[in-house]
Structures are given as C-alpha cells and as structure tokens.
C-alpha cells in the first residue's frame, strides 16, 4: 500500500497501471488458452534446434529438428536418426521427404495418390477446441528446463486426451503424451535437448543427401480454393457415371470436414475419394474406393496413436466399396464413423 504522501500524478498513474498489468498477468499465468497460444507462437516463430524421442506403437525413435522462421516463412528440417535414413524438409507450404532406395515407405507410396493435396480449411481461431477441457498439472522438468504441465482432457470417450509440458521460459512444447480412454499412453514426444532462440545457420536446414535420395514431395493445390478438389487427368474409367459422393452420417461432437478430394490411384484407373476431418486437435481421413477384390478386406489396425478401420459395403446389386477411416481417434470411434458412411447421390 502506498504511503499517503503526495507523489507526482504521472508516477502514481504509472504505478497504478503497473499494478493492473501485474494483476492481469497473474490471471493470465493460469489461463490455458494463453499458454496454448504461447506454445503455438513458439513453435511457429522461434528459431530452435534439438533432438527428441518419439515413442509410438512399441517403437522408440530419435529425431533431430532444426526450425527457423525466415521473413515469416517456416523452414524446418527433421532427421530420422534410427532405422531408415529419412529427412523431412519444410519450406513454407511445401514438404519434401527424402528417402533412400529400399526404404519400406516407398512400397506404400505407390498405392496412394501423390497430390497435390487439397488444403484444409482453417479451423476456428480458438486454441482449445470445443471438445476438450484444459487444466494445469504440476510443475516439471524436461530436457533440463523448467516446465508447466497442461492436461487437455476430452469431454467424452470418442477421442483421446493429451498431456503437454510447456517450457516456462518460451512456452515451447517440450513433451506431449497422447492418452487413450483407459489412461494408457499411446504416444510420447519429448525433447532430449533443445536450444531455443538461437541463430540457425541456413546450412543446418540443408539435407545431407547424396544423389541417390528419392524425393517425395507433398504440396497443396495452387489453383483450387481450399477444400475443393476434382479428379485429375484423364477420366477415371472404373467409377460408375453417377458415382456418388460419400459422407459420414455420424461424427463425434466438434469434428468438421476440412477437405474433400477425388484422386486417381497411381498406375491404375481407380478413383479414391478422400475426406478430411478435424476437431481442432485430432484429425482423421476417410477414404472410399470401389473394390473388386475377391476376399474380404475388412480389418482393424493400430499403430501408436493411429487407428485404421476398413470395411466393405455393397451398394446396389453389383457395386462394392471399401470405406476406411484412419486417424488419431480411438478404434471404436473410427469403427462407428466407417459404419455411418452413406453415399450422397
């Protein structure tokens, strides 16, 4: 309390303002929304380099990351340090994956469209999506840095929960856990070491590849508005002329469609319908394609945080379709979404 002495009014005013600000930031210090925004800003705007562990599906990987924001454009290099040598480079909106010949990932790239991809609609501006509550946990220490735990708890069992540890000094995400409905850890990300706010030499963002690397580029469609997509190149032969579009008739609360696309599967004339959904935190992809397979392909598979459910459905007398949901949602949620998919004439 100020002594009752006459002070110059400007000083008093400044002091009062300072008091208000201090009180405001004390409130803000415990505001999850603010901490999430701070985390997002750190990830996008800070320059940093570090190594982190990534646990998923019983496997533990080590990765190195270098990130720089140059003239507002994101530049990032991620190096996979175990197993297959892979580097992922981001320059703005373009992502390139460098693979070595013989990498198992190459087998799968043949079976999926190569893009360009429909850009997802920007979801809401709120940092904490509607389907979740956030509450702080204890203080912690990660990668030698003092951190604040923030739990992001889903409102229902149709989605996963998260525990985040955010750097006290910068708000940077230091550790994250993805937790299933039974409380089991499905995925862990954790920095072992990170330098934040350092000068990044542009050479650190260059890949260490020799000429034998295979480049797998991911880009957005430049010409179409967000969320729009149409079949590319020649007409796709094996889709009936009035092939329906598709949509799920059930979604967990808060999920919205952000992109839709029809694309040719490479080396074939099969059409693949792709729809993307997110609740602001988790996302899933819905794939529908016509099938002529003799055996039933129905299956459920899981790896770490990602569930996949594939089911075959008959439409009319002679058309069969494979409907697949892949995403960071519980298996039962994926199953329910798959079974709710209907053709839209």
């Amino acid at each position, binding site marked *: 309390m100020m002594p009752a002495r006459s002070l110059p009014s400007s000083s008093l005013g400044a002091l009062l303002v300072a008091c208000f600000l201090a009180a405001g930031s004390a409130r803000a210090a415990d505001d999850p929304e603010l901490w999430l925004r701070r985390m997002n800003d750190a990830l996008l705007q800070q320059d940093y380099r570090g190594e982190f562990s990534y646990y998923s599906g019983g496997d533990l990987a080590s990765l190195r990351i270098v990130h720089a924001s140059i003239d507002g454009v994101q530049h990032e290099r991620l190096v996979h340090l175990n197993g297959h040598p892979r580097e992922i480079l981001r320059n703005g909106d373009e992502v390139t994956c460098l693979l070595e010949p013989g990498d198992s990932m190459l087998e799968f790239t043949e079976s999926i469209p190569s893009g360009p991809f429909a850009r997802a609609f920007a979801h809401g501006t709120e940092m904490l999506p509607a389907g979740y509550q956030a509450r702080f946990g204890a203080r912690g220490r990660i990668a030698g840095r003092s951190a604040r735990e923030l739990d992001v708890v889903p409102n229902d069992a149709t989605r996963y929960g998260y525990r985040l540890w955010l750097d006290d000094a910068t708000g940077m995400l230091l550790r994250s856990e993805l937790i299933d409905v039974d409380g089991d850890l499905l995925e862990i990300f954790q920095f072992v070491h990170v330098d934040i706010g350092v000068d990044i030499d542009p050479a650190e963002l260059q890949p260490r590849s020799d000429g034998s690397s295979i480049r797998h580029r991911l880009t957005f469609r430049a010409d179409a508005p967000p969320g729009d997509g149409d079949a590319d190149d020649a007409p796709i032969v094996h889709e009936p002329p009035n092939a329906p579009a598709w949509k799920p008739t059930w979604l967990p609360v808060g999920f919205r469609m952000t992109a839709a696309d029809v694309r040719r599967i490479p080396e074939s004339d099969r059409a693949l319908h792709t729809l993307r959904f997110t609740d602001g935190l988790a996302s899933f992809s819905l794939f529908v394609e016509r099938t002529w397979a003799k*055996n039933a392909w129905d299956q459920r598979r899981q790896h770490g945080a990602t569930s996949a459910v594939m089911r075959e459905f008959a439409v009319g007398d002679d058309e069969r379709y494979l409907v697949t949901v892949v995403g960071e949602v519980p298996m039962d949620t994926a199953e329910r979404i798959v079974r709710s998919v209907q053709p839209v004439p």
Partner: protein
Amino acid sequence: MTERLRESLSALMDDEADDLELGRVLRAMDEDDVSVRQTWARYQMVSAVMRGLPVGAADSGYADPVVHASTLDAMDPAEATAAQAAGAASSGSHRVRPWLSFATAAGVTLMAVVGVQWQSDDEAPAPARVATTASAASTPTVADLGGFLKVSSPGAGQQRVRTPVPLRYPAFARPPQGEMSDARRQVDAYMLYHAEMSALNSRAGMVPFARYAAFEGTQPVQ
C-alpha cells in the same frame, strides 16, 4: 474383479496359466461369469488389435476363458508344450471336460462353439488347425469358418481344433513387406497417406511430422 484374477485371465490368454490360475478363473466364473466373460472378451479384442489381427466385430462375442481352457485340454502333450500351456493342459478342472464332450458329441467344431469370427484372410496366422470330430465322419463347413482355417481332406487323420494362438516373433525376425497381403498393404498405404496429409496441414508442432517420419506400417502377424 481383483487384480489377481485379471492376471490369471491374462496368463490364460497367453497360454501360461497353471492349474491354480485356471481354478481361480473357473471359480470366478461360478460367482460372476458375466463380468469375467466381458473382461476376457476385452483382453481378446485388445490383444488381437495390438497384433494387427483382423477381428470381426461380431456381436456374438468371443470365446469365454473356459472354452479356451478346454481347447488347451484337447491338445496332445506335444502341442501343449508348443503352446507353452504349462500345467493347464495336464489336468484342468473337472468342469472343463463337459465342454469338450459336448463339442465332440455334437459333431461341432470348437470354433463354432466358441463363436469367434476371424475375417477371411489370405495369410492365416500359423499354426491354425481345423478339427474333424473324433469320429471323423463329418468335416466342418469351410463356409462357417470364412475360409480362414484350412481344411484338410476328409479322413486325413485326426487333427485338433483350437482357437488360433498368434505366435510372437521378435522385431528383427519380422517378415519382409513383400509377404503382406494386399488388404494389409492397402490399409498401411492409407495410414501413410493420412500421415502425409496431417503433416502437410498441421498448423504447428513436430508431432505430426514425427508420425510421418517414423512411419513403418503395421506388421503382419505370423
């Protein structure tokens, strides 16, 4: 449900239950078979999903532990050893036998009694065998089993039926990708596609990139 009972159920599923544990499970079934059955079904489902096995979402449910135990009882000593069912195959409880007798007398395979639906699959987890009944007069219909279990020609000699017990291989012994079935390969391709789109569209953060960078596909189980 006590922790000890849960452990016994788990051991039974892994074919590692001894007589004591088997007895515990049977007594629990006596008292409250519904919750035991439910827990058992969950363990089965989780186990199948974790191993990437296709499992039909059959509402009829899964084998209850008593029937599973009875299949162990039906095995000859060599098989019992192979399945690491130490002790469980030697005697079991006298209550287990009626199940086996029923199955045999009715000329019905234990698979049908069990009600497990394994989806038709080009690559059956080995070793799965199909029983003829002891009388060998009739063979089970392949249609009922979805073509999953391979049936030998009638009269080929006595074989045993058992619920498929997935064998676990250490990571370094995983088969090469070339042996995966088309269906599994397609799901893995979709998982990669999803990882790519998520990485490209992610607002911020390394986790979607890490998921993409560490992508290995899901492994088939043998």
